[in-house]
Structure formats: structure tokens, C-alpha cells
């Protein structure tokens, strides 16, 4: 096929396509009278998003409301057996740590007696700095 023939053939095919499209064109007034599809589809999209958001919010609220209720009146809170065993475990060598005088480390020592003038606000202790040296 020569170049001119090819051009003519392409032009013919395009022309055929255009004629078919033009013949099937909807009436102008009818097209303009239709509801604006873009706006309606946009509204539909917004509606879908709002619905999905509301459903997600309701599901989240449900989960949040049901969880504390379960803990409030869900009966005794039972610990798993392994946890209680671990909590009550004592080392077998604990007895070796009990030595004479070890109670001194577990009590708060009393450094001054109640009758000491240091604790009496009426007789404050005299400073001894530089005195009798």
C-alpha cells in the first residue's frame, strides 16, 4: 500500500468513526436537562465515606463500652496459676541470710533518747564550735 493510499485509508476510518459518533449524539437539551452526574456521584461518595466513618465510630464505641463493663461485673478477677506460683516463690537459700544481728539492718535505729535536750525546743542545743578548744 502506498503512502497516499494509507493516508486515505486512515482518513476514511476516522471519518467513519466520527460519523457514527455524531449520529449517536444525544440531544443537546436532553443532555443539559439531566441531573449533574458529577455532583450526584460526589454526594454518593461523601455519603459512603460518612457511613463508613459512622460504622467505625460505632464499633470503636462498642468495644470501649463493653471492655470496662466486663471488668466491673465480670466476677472475680482470677490470676493465671503460673503468676501466683511465681509470686509466692521463695528461694531455698533464704535461711542462710538469717544471721545473728541481721535484725539491725531491718529496723530504724534510735540515735537520741526522748529526754535529750536536742529535741527540746525550749532549750536549744548550744553550739560548741570553737568552745573549750
Amino acid at each position: 500500500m502506498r503512502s497516499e493510499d494509507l493516508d486515505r485509508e486512515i482518513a476514511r476510518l476516522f471519518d467513519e468513526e466520527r460519523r457514527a459518533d455524531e449520529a449517536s449524539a444525544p440531544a443537546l437539551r436532553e443532555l443539559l436537562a439531566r441531573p449533574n452526574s458529577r455532583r450526584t456521584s460526589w454526594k454518593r461518595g461523601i455519603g459512603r465515606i460518612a457511613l463508613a466513618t459512622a460504622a467505625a465510630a460505632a464499633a470503636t464505641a462498642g468495644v470501649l463500652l463493653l471492655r470496662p463493663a466486663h471488668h466491673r461485673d465480670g466476677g472475680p478477677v482470677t490470676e493465671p496459676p503460673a503468676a501466683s506460683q511465681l509470686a509466692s516463690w521463695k528461694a531455698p537459700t533464704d535461711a542462710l541470710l538469717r544471721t545473728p544481728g541481721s535484725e539491725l539492718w531491718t529496723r530504724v535505729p534510735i540515735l537520741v533518747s526522748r529526754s535529750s535536750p536536742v529535741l527540746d525546743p525550749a532549750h536549744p542545743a548550744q553550739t560548741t564550735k570553737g568552745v573549750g578548744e
Partner: protein
Amino acid sequence: MTPAETSAEIEKLHAAGFAWSMACCGRNREGAEDVLQASYLKILDGRARFAGRSSFKTFLFGVIRRTAAEQRRRTAIRRVIFASAIPAQPPAGEGASVDRLAFRSALARLARRQREVLELVFSMGMTLQEASETLSISVGSARVHYDRGKKRLAAVLKRRS
């Protein structure tokens, strides 16, 4: 241009505008009608104004092309958000001869710009200057798209025949 004159121009170019809209929407009739309606409303509402720098046909076809591009972007975004809700719409093929279906398939293989330039020149009878104004590209670019598109289309058609 007065609103009455604008309406008269639209009415005169309506059939050709629909054919161009079909070309911009990949022969999807429903999409082409939506694009054409949106384009007319843009012009009649004053959102797209004819400045008189080119012919009204070039202006109208430019508005249709931009509106089709906007719709493609919107559809792509909606397809990502509502992946399963929006099925891809096949191009209208009813009533088309085997010859025309083969031609459409060959056209679909071209790059969008090449296809657009060829449609405007061969189908709409525009010059390369007018086609470049419609597509908002330089005449040089339009010529390159025209040459490459025609060669590629010819190669595909030759292979088929």
C-alpha cells in the same frame, strides 16, 4: 460573546463535540456524555470563558479535553478508594463493524497525545495549528505527535491487513 451566541455556537458544534468527547473518553459513551455535559455547564456558568484568542471550536474542544482529563483523574482516585465498588467501564462496541473495531484497537495502541492529534486532524478536520491550540502544546510538538502517530498507526494497520 453573549450567552445567546455561546448557546448557538454550542448547538452548532454539539455533534462534533460529542464525537471528540467520545475520543477523549476512550469510546465510553456514558463517560463522554458526562464530560460533555460538564463542559457545557462550565462554559454556560462562566467557569470557562472564551477569550476570543482562537476559534470557538478550538476553545470548546480544549474545555472538553481538560474536563475528560479531570474525570479520568477522579475515576482513578475513586477506583483506588473504592477498589471493588467501581468496575472499569468497557468502551462501547455495539453496532461497530469488524473493520472499525480493528481500527479502534489499533488507535488504542498509540500514545494519548498521538491519538488526540490524529483525531483532531483526520476526524475533526483541524489544521496542526488548531490541534496544537486545542491540546495546549506547540505546533512543533503537534507535528511530531502527528508524524509518529501516523507511522505507528500505519504499521499496526499494515500488520493486521
